């Protein structure tokens, strides 16, 4: 590797030591490391042409250590892991470098040797646990199979499968063994997958986005489980995640990947608290953190796009998007620079200008004023909304007596685990879901019909939606122009030249350019597609836009741009949002008020600041403490056990009492439904515990933590 050398361009004028180039693998012993990846280069054959995906990835995971790979989609995180497991797809091949698991080079071994490594040394847990289990085989058989592969007899394997399921703290393991995957919740499925992964007592456990797609509360449980199992088994962990908070929670060290290269590496706390590569800085600043609000500041974005796969990137891979790039960055490959006093290679960044990283200017601050007038009449009012589904002669109460209002220009955030009724509520507002008789959805003082078809055109135009997945929300056969023009003419009735003018205004609003108009959705990136979807919703000057997880499918830098766009549009157009997201940081950034739903009932609703600052409803408290923070926030100890009860048979009394960590001794929670009462101005809560007592309990917790 490169010899240590002094970077000639930068004088040693600061207090910091001069930049020293280091070997990122110095100190790693290939023979003993759990995983040793060395200069790995991987190509994918696309139409017969090899396209480079990994451009010399080097890192090592020591025995018992947990190492995280972060980066946006397409940066090569998963490809790195799959190469190391011999699981590259047919068109992928290792062009150079090697990957060793427990001292054995996976990239050059025979398939039967590879099988032995998989059998004995390494295991994997994937993103979608539902897909990772065979839908046609019972859980018990699938788990037992992992043990029979290791040489156990049938009966022995079943016993050990039972033990394995108990170890991952699944309730009723005996019963679970007799069930099929689709009969388990996502959290339970992931526990089963983890149980199978631990069957061989692996030296290395690879986790590929293990909690993506799970609720925050379930995510917290799974992460707890991974942590405690790691302590028990001493397995090294390679964790791949785009969620920086998850990485910070679990990992000792982290590598930040961009365009097939590790651009920064170090202890997780150091990298996240003191990022030193411009990409890491950008990535962290994209996140709405430290309680950032839409009225206080815009979110930073990373302008530009990830390079196409196979693009030739001879120098710095990040140069095209880097705010501090100079000519040097385009002519010379950046050195691997040691950061701080440690020159062992443990902490480095690949950058010519690490001394200038602090100069990267953050996005503009806003004046913090709240443009939404508080005391005006609500634009939308939900009164006693109930939605009941009937299934196999059972009634499932999806929404129970929901009363909410939405004021002009404000964002109402909807928060709750899956199955809490967020989406049903959004559909009811839109008129896609007919509420029960007696429910009232009132727009501008006028009650609306339950079904969109029966609503007047103006009401339909007024309420629009932006979906989670722009891929399926946009017609793939149509051009952007056709999609937006049709929305314009359908919603406003405008045609001809006037429509063309409006189209131009509209694409300006959503920051698209005329050259995007003639493209089809598949020719656009995820962020651009979501802009088109937002443009479609805004075509008829809506007064209310329902945003159902609009950024969940996007990378954080794109998410930041979309959130900025939504905030700008709201400021300019005075539109109101009903904003659904499982990401509480995102909800906090955009929302003025927040409603917390559980089993179709509102547990708490109030100004965003109050709901987040507390005292909270115990359920809100649990949701908040479940979120892994990228800032390594104090480790709170509220964990929800067990599953969300079935909406067909909700618990008596307070529906949350079966999981509530603050349930009262008196037994009132089990018998009496707490009313939703105002505890502070504009802040309503449904809990038997008085506000002041909650304040005391929750303050005590924070002090302890």
């Amino acid at each position, binding site marked *: 590797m490169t010899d240590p050398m002094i970077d000639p361009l930068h004088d040693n004028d600061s207090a910091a030591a001069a930049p020293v180039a280091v070997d990122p693998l110095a100190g790693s012993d290939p023979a003993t490391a759990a995983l040793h990846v060395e200069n790995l280069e991987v190509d994918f054959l696309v139409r017969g042409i090899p396209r480079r995906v990994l451009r010399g990835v080097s890192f090592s995971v020591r025995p018992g250590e947990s190492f995280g790979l972060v980066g946006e989609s397409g940066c090569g995180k998963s490809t790195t892991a799959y190469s190391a*497991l011999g*699981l590259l797809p*047919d068109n992928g091949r290792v062009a150079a470098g090697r990957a060793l698991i427990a001292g054995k080079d996976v990239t050059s071994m025979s*398939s039967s040797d590879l*099988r*032995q490594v*998989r*059998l*004995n040394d*390494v*295991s*994997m847990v*994937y993103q*979608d646990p539902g*897909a*990772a*289990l*065979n*839908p*046609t*085989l*019972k859980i018990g058989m699938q788990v037992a*199979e*992992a043990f029979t*592969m*290791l040489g156990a007899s049938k009966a022995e394997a079943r016993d050990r499968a039972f033990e394995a399921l108990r170890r991952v703290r699944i309730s009723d393991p005996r019963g679970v063994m007799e069930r*099929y995957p*689709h*009969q388990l919740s996502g959290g339970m499925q992931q526990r089963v*997958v983890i149980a*199978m*992964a631990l*069957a*061989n007592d692996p030296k290395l456990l690879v986790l590929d986005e293990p909690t993506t797609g799970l609720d925050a509360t379930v995510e917290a449980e799974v992460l707890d489980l991974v942590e405690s199992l790691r302590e028990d088994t001493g397995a090294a962990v390679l964790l791949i995640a785009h969620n920086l908070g998850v990485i910070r929670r679990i990992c000792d060290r982290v590598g930040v990947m961009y365009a097939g290269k590790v651009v920064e590496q170090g202890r997780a706390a150091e990298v996240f608290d003191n990022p030193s590569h411009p990409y890491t800085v950008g990535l962290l600043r994209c996140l709405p953190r430290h309680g950032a609000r839409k009225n206080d500041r815009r979110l930073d974005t990373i302008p530009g796009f990830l390079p196409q796969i196979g693009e030739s990137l001879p120098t710095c891979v990040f140069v095209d998007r880097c705010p501090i790039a100079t000519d040097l960055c385009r002519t010379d490959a950046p050195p691997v620079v040691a950061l701080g006093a440690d020159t062992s290679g443990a902490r480095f960044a690949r950058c010519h200008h690490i001394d200038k990283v602090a100069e990267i200017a953050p996005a503009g601050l806003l004046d913090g004023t709240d443009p939404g007038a508080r005391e005006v009449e609500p634009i939308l009012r939900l009164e006693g909304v109930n939605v009941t589904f009937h299934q*196999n002669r059972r009634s499932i109460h999806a929404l129970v007596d929901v009363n909410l209002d939405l004021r002009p220009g404000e964002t109402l955030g909807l928060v709750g685990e899956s199955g809490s009724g967020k989406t049903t509520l959004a559909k009811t507002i839109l008129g896609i879901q007919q509420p029960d008789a007696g429910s009232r959805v009132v727009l501008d003082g006028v009650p609306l019909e339950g079904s969109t078809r029966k609503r007047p055109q103006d009401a339909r135009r007024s309420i629009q939606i932006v979906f989670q997945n722009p891929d399926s929300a946009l017609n793939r056969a149509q051009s952007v122009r056709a999609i937006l023009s049709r929305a314009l003419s359908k919603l406003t009735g405008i045609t001809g030249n006037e429509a063309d003018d409006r189209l131009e205004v509209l694409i300006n609003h959503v920051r698209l350019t005329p050259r995007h108009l003639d493209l089809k959705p598949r020719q656009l990136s995820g962020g651009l597609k979501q802009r088109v979807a937002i443009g479609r919703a805004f075509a008829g000057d809506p007064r209310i836009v329902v945003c159902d997880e609009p950024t969940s499918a996007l990378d954080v830098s794109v998410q930041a741009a979309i959130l900025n766009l939504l905030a700008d549009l709201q400021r300019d157009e005075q539109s109101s949002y009903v904003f659904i997201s499982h990401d509480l940081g995102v909800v906090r950034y955009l929302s003025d008020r927040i409603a917390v739903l559980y089993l179709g009932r509102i547990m708490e609703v109030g100004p965003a600041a109050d709901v987040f600052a507390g005292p909270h409803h115990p359920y809100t408290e649990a949701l908040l403490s479940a979120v892994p923070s990228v800032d390594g926030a104090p480790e709170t100890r509220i964990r929800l056990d067990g599953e969300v009860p079935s909406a067909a048979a909700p618990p008596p009394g307070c529906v949350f009492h079966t999981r509530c960590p603050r349930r009262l001794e008196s037994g009132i929670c089990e018998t009496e439904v707490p009313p939703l009462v105002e505890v502070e101005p504009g802040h309503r809560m449904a809990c038997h515990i008085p506000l002041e007592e909650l304040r005391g309990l929750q303050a005590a917790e924070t002090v302890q933590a």
Partner: protein
Amino acid sequence: MVVYVLRRLALAVVTLFLLTLIVFAISNVLPQDVARAILGPFAPAESVAQLNKQLGTDQPLLVQYWRLLKGIITFDFGTSYQSGQPVTELIGQTLSNSAKLAILALLLTVPLGVVGGIAAALRKGRLADRVIVTLGLAGSAIPEFVTSTFLIFVLGLKLNVLPVLATWPEGSSIGTQAYYLLMPSLALVLVYFGYIARMARAGTIGALEADYTRTATMKGMTRAKVLRTHVLRNALLPTISVVATQTGYLFGGLLAVEVIFNVNGLGRLLVTAAKAKDLPVLSAGVLVIGTIYMVATLLADLLISYLNPRIRLAANA
């Protein structure tokens, strides 16, 4: 499971009932005057009236429909206008010939198609895959009478290894009959192999790329064991439905093959009946094919729900 079977059976009966309505509507209502349709525009009115009376087609529609329903239950569909033979007898003979041909064709096509599809999936993108896919596609694209003629020319006339006509001597054993039916069956194999292979290939590719297959691979299993325990069952579910839909065609839609190889089958009987406006034969034949189609689909659904716990358990709930 029992509830599911009963529910599916009830549904099949309802469908069959609807089929009788459609058959009745087409055969009795559309021609308006059945005897006129048979005798032609120049026949004297008296003859027409007489024939109508003889056929019972002068009676109210409800009565006629009742007769059809009664016929289904008692297996008595009256006599053929054309030959005067009882319809049940006519259908019985031809159905047995058609069934022999269909079963032989299925016995050949299904294993070949499934194995071919799986083999293609396992060598996706390579030569074997391309050959299987192209052959299958070509086979399904070429009309049956072309493949049949080609087979007769090669196997029958040039090589002289198989009989050209499927007319076996009276009282032949099953084996001999199968020998005579081999060539028409091969023609059908050529046509249907492609469909089945394509489904089996797609299903296998889907299952091979599924995450659970990767899970199994990561357990350290050999590829053969992964295929056996995790891939095949999931891979073949879609193929089962395709086989069921084709069974209906194989029993009644084989006019060209039956004519070319001189098989006295249901397809030919129906076409002749349709040409001669022999309504009792036509409606009984359509109902029989409909029933076969329904039974095949029912069996396929039951097999699928047996293999796929998601469907089975949802059905129980």
